[in-house]
């Protein structure tokens, strides 16, 4: 589905309005301090009133099938609000996995995901790094079933997921299967960024029927590559949204805060820092747009180049924002550190900037 510029602009405005109402930073902090650490009410609202989870689900599977620009807009606004909702895990990762897999399990799950059911993927190594060669779950064939053993680390929203897509290595290449949450052990891992919930997922002789296998061999490789790409693109958009918000905060502070009888924003040291940050913010926004296109277009090189730029720009902007705010920006009560920690996690999750660049370098140096 293509979207006009005006539609995108409307989407952004209405989503921002809702999030400013329902997901102010007090609410983010409240969710962070309580179980399950995910704002299920907000998620339900986003599903019901805005159709957010449906946007990434194809029309033929009961979704809206929005284009990459629209998905990027949603991810940006969620990042801007630090929204603790399972958009990344469910609407991006799990939805991409089922969409690429097709078949009966996709037909079963995609309509539910579109309505707000939560899925996630366990497709990284124990250290949370993506890549078929980095998986620490092994699959062995046992008659008509496949048995999974091992660990996937830093799995998002596994505590609240109703279905997990698990990737494993086997003798015949990778295997991707849908697994019920009851079959695995989910151990929460508390990270500094409290707006995201991550877990270690352990599988001990988890026996899966053939029917739950979503992909094998080459098609599993392609499915996983797509999941990694869309994941990186979503994090890039999250970064672009967060960076812009932080920059707005810093600019406002620089206009308000007076030192040496002048607003600090009148000093070149601060003004020029804010200008450099703005370049990064505009770059991150352009990069997030490019990453969304590249993910949809299966362009590995462009995806890696743009996504790595965006997440790294976010960490830089976040650090500079603290510096501009001075002591105040370093307090627990101020929101700077929430963005800072999310920025750092965006950079590391589902493939760091360095991991992405290593992939880009493959394409750049291919003869």
């Amino acid at each position, binding site marked *: 589905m293509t979207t006009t510029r005006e539609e995108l602009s409307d989407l952004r405005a209405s989503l921002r309005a809702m999030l400013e109402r329902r997901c102010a930073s007090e609410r983010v902090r409240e969710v962070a301090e309580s179980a399950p650490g995910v704002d299920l009410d907000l998620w339900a609202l986003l599903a019901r009133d805005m159709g957010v989870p449906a946007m990434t689900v194809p029309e033929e599977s009961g979704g809206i099938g929005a284009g990459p620009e629209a998905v990027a807009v949603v991810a940006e606004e969620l990042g801007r609000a630090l929204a603790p909702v399972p958009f990344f895990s469910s609407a991006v990762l799990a939805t991409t996995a089922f969409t690429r897999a097709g078949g009966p399990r996709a037909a079963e799950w995609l309509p539910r995901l579109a309505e707000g059911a939560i899925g996630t993927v366990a497709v990284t190594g124990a250290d949370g790094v993506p890549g078929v060669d980095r998986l620490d779950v092994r699959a062995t064939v046992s008659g008509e079933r496949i048995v999974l053993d091992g660990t996937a680390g830093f799995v998002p929203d596994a505590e609240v997921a109703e279905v997990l897509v698990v990737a494993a290595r086997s003798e015949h290449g990778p295997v991707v299967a849908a697994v019920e949450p009851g079959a695995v052990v989910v151990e929460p891992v508390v990270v500094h960024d409290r707006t995201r919930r991550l877990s270690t997922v352990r599988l001990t002789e988890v026996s899966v029927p053939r029917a739950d296998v979503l992909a094998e061999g080459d098609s599993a490789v392609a499915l996983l590559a797509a999941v990694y790409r869309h994941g990186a693109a979503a994090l890039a958009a999250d970064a672009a949204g967060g960076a812009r918000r932080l920059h707005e905060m810093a*600019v406002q502070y*620089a*206009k308000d805060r007076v030192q040496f009888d*002048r*607003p600090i*924003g*009148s*000093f*070149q040291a*601060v*003004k*020029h820092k*804010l*200008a*450099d940050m*703005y*370049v990064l913010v*505009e*770059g991150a926004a*352009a*990069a997030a*747009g*490019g990453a969304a*296109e*590249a993910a949809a277009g299966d362009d590995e090189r*462009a995806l*890696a*180049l*743009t996504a*790595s*730029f965006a997440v790294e720009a976010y960490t830089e902007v976040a650090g500079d924002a603290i510096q501009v705010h001075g002591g105040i920006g370093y307090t627990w009560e101020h929101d700077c550190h929430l963005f800072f920690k999310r920025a750092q996690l965006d950079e590391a999750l589902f493939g760091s900037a*360095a991991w*992405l*660049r*290593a992939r*880009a*370098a493959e394409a*750049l*140096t291919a003869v």
Partner: protein
Amino acid sequence: MTAKAPGEDAELAAYRARVRAWLAEHTPEDWAEKLPYADETEVLEFYRTWARELHSAGLLVPQWPERFGGSGAGLAQQVVLQQEMSRAGAPRPRYLAISLGHAAATLMEHGSPEQQKLLDGILEGDVWCQGFSEPGAGSDLASLRTRAVREGDYYVVNGQKIWSSMGLYARWGLLLARTDPDAPKHRGISLFILDMRAPGVEVRPIRQATGAHEFAEVFLTDVRIPASMLVGKENEGWRLAQTTLATERYAQMVELHAGLEELLALLVRQARTLRAADGGPLVEDPEFRQRLAAFAGEVEVLGLINDRVLGDISAGRDPGARGSILKLYFSRLLQRLTAFGVRSNGLAAHVDPRRKNDLSYTSGDWMLDHIRSWTWTIAAGSNEIQRNIIGERVLGLPREPR
């Protein structure tokens, strides 16, 4: 550069094929090896000829409106043209950068019909220069002191210009001079078209750190400029020059971006035979690869930012001060990328090929390209000035007390 609307694909592909075929047939051989060692007159003649040839194929200024000799080509075609010129290794008429860029934009947007006739000369290869900066007015351009006094049908101009790009080679110049000495700084300045052959115009080359003479000093002694060569209204030259400069920056960026991609491609080719610090092939060195990819990411994102800006412009939306963003971003990227080229090439980057002429910033002589990058961080509003512009005009931060 991404984002081609699906509908355009077949048409664009046909355009690309046509451009590629033409360039394959017409691109001069060995120019990149020979031209840097040629005399300036030979170089100028080469570019005049090449510009005329490009124009005869509709490839010099496709983006110009038809009434001025272009074909009103859109952004996508410009991008394709630049990509194909990179691919073909075709010369870019850099001596004509101001002619085809800022001068042409000024004439088209603000010129009288008489002035617009000068566009024909540009398509024939006339070099234009800029007379903006002065010894006491560099970053603080508005404090310029060159005076233009109306005397009947003429303005009589006295003063001195410096950092006049292409000044040594120019047939015409865009000149900023003060016409109202009593008005506040920005207000009393007018924009003129200066005949560089007029009596009283003296040009002295400035030799740059690269050895080239891209810039010149221009001394103006009782130079008589016909009043018909005043561009726009008297005392409004400042605003006029600023807006055309800004617009021009966006258009130019398509070519600059293509240049960065050329530098990256060159570096990858070189890395196949260069060695890393540990003696292994550079192209396989993880540090080189990480940095290469980081630079490629910055280049990619520059293209995306510019796509957005050009998209805004073609949709009639104000791009704001994003020209400052682009200049700041591009110039710093060029500086760091050429430094990376120097380091990657080791001592080979230090060997001086002793070229006589090379105004390119993508000559492949990494050291000179690196040094030349400072023209981009200093000239046409230093990066410090660009940051002020972004801070004050875009972000609304308070000005410094004076």
